[in-house]
């Protein structure tokens, strides 16, 4: 895979996207530099999830260019998109798991599909880090919302991706768990990972800004703008 231009891992250049002819994002430009921490906020339906999906190739922009690690998503083959997703950890809003597999197997799934040997110790360490060491044999439906969110985070980082995109990672959990998840993401950022979190939880953003230098982007009127100091 091509190595991207140093200084940016994901870049959106004049990107537009709409559903059924209805524009959702218009001429959005954005650069995520290595090790940066971004929040993406805005009202429900503003296009936060869509923007994240554009960033990992789940959607293709109707206009403009999306580059991930220096490669234009439009010119990527499906295999290249798959390879790119191994470098981008995604914590999905719906916490998608395979219910017939154990938690440990779900967390190890990115290793399994990439053909890398699954070290039991590696998975166990990760589950311990997210506080789920006692649930490794549980099936996803047996877990609480917070446990599933942490499991999704563990799965997103097991390949040691350069970027982590989290879509409403604290959407279904209480404040205490939200802060715990945020701390895990901040810790990852301190390890050098690029983080972008889509959330409408302004309290979470304020809490994060006390711990890490984060840029806050707001989607409004189909545009992405840098949020003001009121956050």
């Amino acid at each position, binding site marked *: 895979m091509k190595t991207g231009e140093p200084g940016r891992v994901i870049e959106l250049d004049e990107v537009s996207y709409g559903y059924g002819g209805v524009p959702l994002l218009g001429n959005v430009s954005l650069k995520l530099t290595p090790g940066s921490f971004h929040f993406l906020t805005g009202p429900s339906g503003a296009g936060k999830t869509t923007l994240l999906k554009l960033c990992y*190739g789940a959607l293709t922009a109707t206009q403009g260019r999306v580059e991930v690690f220096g490669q234009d998503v439009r010119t990527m083959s499906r*295999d290249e998109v798959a*390879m790119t997703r191994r470098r981008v950890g995604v914590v999905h809003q719906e916490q998608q798991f*395979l219910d017939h597999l154990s938690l440990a197997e779900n967390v190890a*799934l990115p290793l399994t*599909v990439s053909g890398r040997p699954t070290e039991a110790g590696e998975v166990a360490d990760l589950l311990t880090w997210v506080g789920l060491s006692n649930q490794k044999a549980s099936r996803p439906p047996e877990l609480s919302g917070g446990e599933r969110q942490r499991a999704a985070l563990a799965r997103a980082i097991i390949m040691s991706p350069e970027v982590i995109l989290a879509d409403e990672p604290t959407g279904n959990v209480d404040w205490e768990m939200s802060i715990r998840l945020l701390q895990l993401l901040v810790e990852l950022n301190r390890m050098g990972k690029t983080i972008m979190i889509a959330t409408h939880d302004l309290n979470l953003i304020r809490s994060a800004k006390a711990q890490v230098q984060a840029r806050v982007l707001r989607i409004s009127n189909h545009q992405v703008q840098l949020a003001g100091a009121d956050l």
Partner: protein
Amino acid sequence: MSKLPAAFALVAGDKQADRVVPPTGFTARLTIFASAAMAFLAVFALALSLATGRIAAQWDAALAQSSTIRVSAPQGQVEAQVQAVIEVLSATPGVADARVLSDDDQRALLEPWFGPDLPLDTLPVPRLIAITETPDGYDTAGLRARLAGEAPGAVLDDHTRWREPLVRAADRMRLFGLVSLALIAATTAAIITLAASAALAANAQVIGVLRLVGARDTYIARAFVRRYTLRGLAGAGLGTLVGMVAVWLMPGDDSTGGFLTGLGFAGPEWFLPLLIPPLAAAVAFLATRRAALATLRERP
């Protein structure tokens, strides 16, 4: 990866990779049943095709070894022309035996149409001479020319007009057998495609998760392809076995049974049905792979 290790890997499988797709009970049973039923039918289509060719060849050979001369002449000249024909035949290379049919023989031939006690002497029935040929046969055109000179009332019937439609019918039957085999393969492919598509649709969420974590299409497809290939192989193996036993249990070939008792395999032909299971597996492999990759391409 070369084809042999790839085929071995397909059969051996990858325990971890196999687990990522949950078991699919209904489509599994459908695939095994359809493959078994189609393999069973394929055994019969193959037996029909082979038996048709074999029996037609036997009939063709039997007719080709014999011919008939019909002598029609005015009263008083018949015996002289019959004698002339016999003399010509005795000097013709390729004629093993020539026999003038007696009145009783001719009466027996005509009895099915005219009833018993036929007064042959009052009817203008031609005299018939039955010829048995040597394996090399005789020169038909040369014999006809000599008969025309020696016995103008003699007409040679070398059975060509009987053999040609028989050979055409046999060829057509063989073609029907092969078309049936092709239709069986196509139907198997269609059923397995439907079953695999149903399984893929039922596992849309699984596929979404696998794509999300970086699985390639070929990885996801392989999990489905392997299952359906092995099911196709197992079902076809079962159907072929039952079909071969059924053919084996059919009544043996005898002269009174005619065509139906000749339906089956002869000698090394018994090995041919053994090709059906691997061919069914190949059909299942191609059908599932095509269905899986087409379905996956529609997903982001």
